[in-house]
């Protein structure tokens, strides 16, 4: 049984997603919805990783990080600069790049949950199946939010001369 591998993949993907969301939220402090929702989604992604703590132990996988997402030391600085630079031109391209990267990371986490879910089903671990199902759905929502936000942001950045 190699469920531990699948758990590790999910945990890593969600933790990375959490950190990335936190960084992106901070970097785009002047985009107030990205800031607030990005931060909230980061906390949720970290919590999703943590929700596997007992299963990680059961299957001998690595223990998920118990702390909140880590934006890195530069975060406060980044947030302040972002608000100050609210007037600067062309933050848009950076926003697009950041949202796209984060979307891909959310997709990585999403498919990791799918893989784990398949394993859990085949091992008939119904408790794990249930835990994975609701986390997977929430992860999908994070991706959909990023997709929605990107679809709104892209035209203004790309089409304005």
């Amino acid at each position, binding site marked *: 049984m190699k469920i531990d591998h699948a758990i590790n993949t999910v945990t890593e993907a969600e933790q990375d997603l959490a950190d990335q969301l936190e960084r992106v939220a901070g970097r785009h402090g002047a985009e*107030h919805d990205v800031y607030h929702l990005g931060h909230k989604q980061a906390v949720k992604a970290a919590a999703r990783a943590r929700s596997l703590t007992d299963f990680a132990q059961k299957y001998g996988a690595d223990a998920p990080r118990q702390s909140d997402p880590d934006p890195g030391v530069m975060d406060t600085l980044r947030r302040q600069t972002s608000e100050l630079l609210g007037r600067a031109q062309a933050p848009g391209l950076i926003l697009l790049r950041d949202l796209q990267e984060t979307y891909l990371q959310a997709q990585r986490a999403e498919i990791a949950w799918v893989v784990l879910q398949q394993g859990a089903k085949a091992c008939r671990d119904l408790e794990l199946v249930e835990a994975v199902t609701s986390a997977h759905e929430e992860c999908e929502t994070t991706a959909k*939010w990023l997709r929605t936000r990107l679809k709104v942001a892209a035209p203004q*950045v790309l089409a304005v001369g």
Partner: protein
Amino acid sequence: MEAERVRDVWGRRTPHGADGSWPSRVDQQLLDGVDAAMVTWHQSACVLCSNGCGLDIGVVDGRMVGVRGRADDRVNRGRLGPKGSYGWQANLSPDRLTTPLVRREGQLQPATWDEAMELVVARSRDVLNRRGPLGMGFYTSGQLFLEDYYTLGVLVRGGIGTPHLDGNTRLCTATSDFALKESFGSDGAPGSLTDFDLCDTIFAVGHNIPETHTVLWARILDRLDGGDPPRLVVVDPRSTRIAQAATVHLPIRPGTNVALLNGIQHELVARGFVDETFVQEHTIGLERLQKTVAEYSPDLVSTICGVPAADISAAAEVLGQSQRLVSTCLQGVYQSNQATAAACQVNNITLLRGMIGRPGCTVFQMNGQPTAQNTRETGADGDFVGMRNWQNPDHVAELAQLWNVEQSQIPSWAPPTHVMQMFRYAEEGSLEFLWITATNPAVSLPELHRIRSILSQDRVFVVVNDAFPTETTQLADVVLPAALWGEKLGTFTNHDRTVHLSEKAVEPPGEARADLDIFLDYAARMELQDKDGKPLLHWRTPQECFDAFKEVTRGRPCDYSGLSYEVLRGSPGIQWPATPENPSGTERLYTDHHFHTETDYTEDYGHDLATGASRERKDHVALGADGRAMLLAAAYEPANEQPDEERPLLFTSGRTVHHFHTRTKTGRTPELEMAAPEPWVELSPADADAHGIEEGDLVSVESARGRIEAPARICGNREGVVFAPFHYGYWDSSASLDGSGPGDRPTAANELTMTSWDPVSKQPTLKLAAVSIAKVSP
């Protein structure tokens, strides 16, 4: 002038039982010394709140001299509140704008219409050339007429081709609109104001009816004084008059609506108050909802909301036992934390109890501004015209055909841009042209120092249509003087879908023009054309515009096709949908319990309530609602800003009965201005005590964004909650330098509020900010 309606806001009682026979009571107000026999009367309705009370405008010698309620009008049966009785005098105000103004060397100076419009057109062309259509933004109102909005909507979406068009309805009823779309598949109040006459229970969530909709409150008072009065369940952190009349009052901690409403649903489910048959046949989503609300026991909810668990159960008991329930929400939901999620929970309660589509049973996601409903119907805000779905290519194609433009011309790649996003684009520099009509963002948007600084930038060209100098006109590059209600012909629709005709009773002052005419002039100068090279706006008069609009609503939820000026003239108000087969309109929607949720018909595929992630077509198909209403689950999430050591109190704002919005009209009405000349700050006795503040002391309230000052009123608010009315800006402040900003005496509540909005409706969270207070002087 006898200011009777100021002293006696709701007027004489005319009690009645639950039989739907609300008596008429005609209120009339004439200027002193006017001979009533000389007055000619012109049909209209009041434009000072969304109730839209039917009235006649009195005229002598071409001058407005008074108003009189229309006895047979279905909305008010003759009654008028204080704003309706006196507010029309703003039209007579000596400081009306009567000529265009153009900024020259930093100063706004009089100009001719030609000069002003040529400047607007030159700047439009310049921005279109350099930046393209997405460099242009338009921000309109909830106080114009249907014809003004529709003209603007076609001009912007079909002509200029930018998605950046929103209304100040975003601050007022965006959440109403979105909550109705999420739960029932389209905008449009399901019920009728007559349901208040027939119900046995009223559930008011964050809706201070006595102050916001005075004539509706008079209607309810008549029930409370009559036989078989309804019971009231009221959710409001303040001890308002409606709270005092309640069977159960829940003064919850601001920002916790979803937790409370989940708690109530928990109790409805646990105690068997769910109408199983209705829910089974006419809704989807019960299983998930049950799973979510199961966690919200009254004990847990009590700790989140700060109200006793027993009161939560008692509220559920009253709602559960009701046979005819009317629920209503307003800004305490819409401008608070988790706005759309909370409003949808009230819809859920309606559905769980099966209280919709029959007499005395409905939910009102109430409106605030008089014509907000039309902004939504005409697509002059975040909606698509005729309640179409921007994500549905068939709907866009239909519109393109009706307008005779290429489908690609109509921006439908993303939802229409909300105002906070537009201001962000103006802040970062990609939007350089902003045309504001009949609204005052320099007082009404959050975080005012930011808004003022965005509007003051040289690189953003700001055009403002208004009837008065306002804080916003002071920051504009071009100001265009607008005709007011009574000075132009048109129609508008209230919060129970009642359409009224409003006659032109007098000429506008000076060179002021109707917004409709200003837009037509602009479109002609810009040479906006359809795909055959004909003028895109092919109407010249309000009536022709109305007829064009009728066509685009045919077959949609807001079907106006059976209406005309002839039908409306002399009518007591007609509720849409009104078709040629059914020209007298429709009192209640969903009487067959079939909702607007078929994928091909629905106005919106819906959103995730927590993030605002859009559902795409395939997601909506997968839900399989197919005419059933949606029960929508939402977990409680704390607000974006929480009190802390530095700012330990929660600030919330609201209205007072005598004023409307930023006082541009009511501040120019002697009786109303006299009744409420000054702002104030409400504190609970405990908070006042803790800071050594006594009644009348000047108090400073400070948030992370700004500060206001006003005298203290000590009253029965819940501890930890600070309230101030949001009306008081600077146009008439002696401390202000130019009438745009505070000088050394900040009073506008939005100095304090945060730049944050609901993820679904994008309505700013104006009712929540962490603040500290201090005594400035006795």
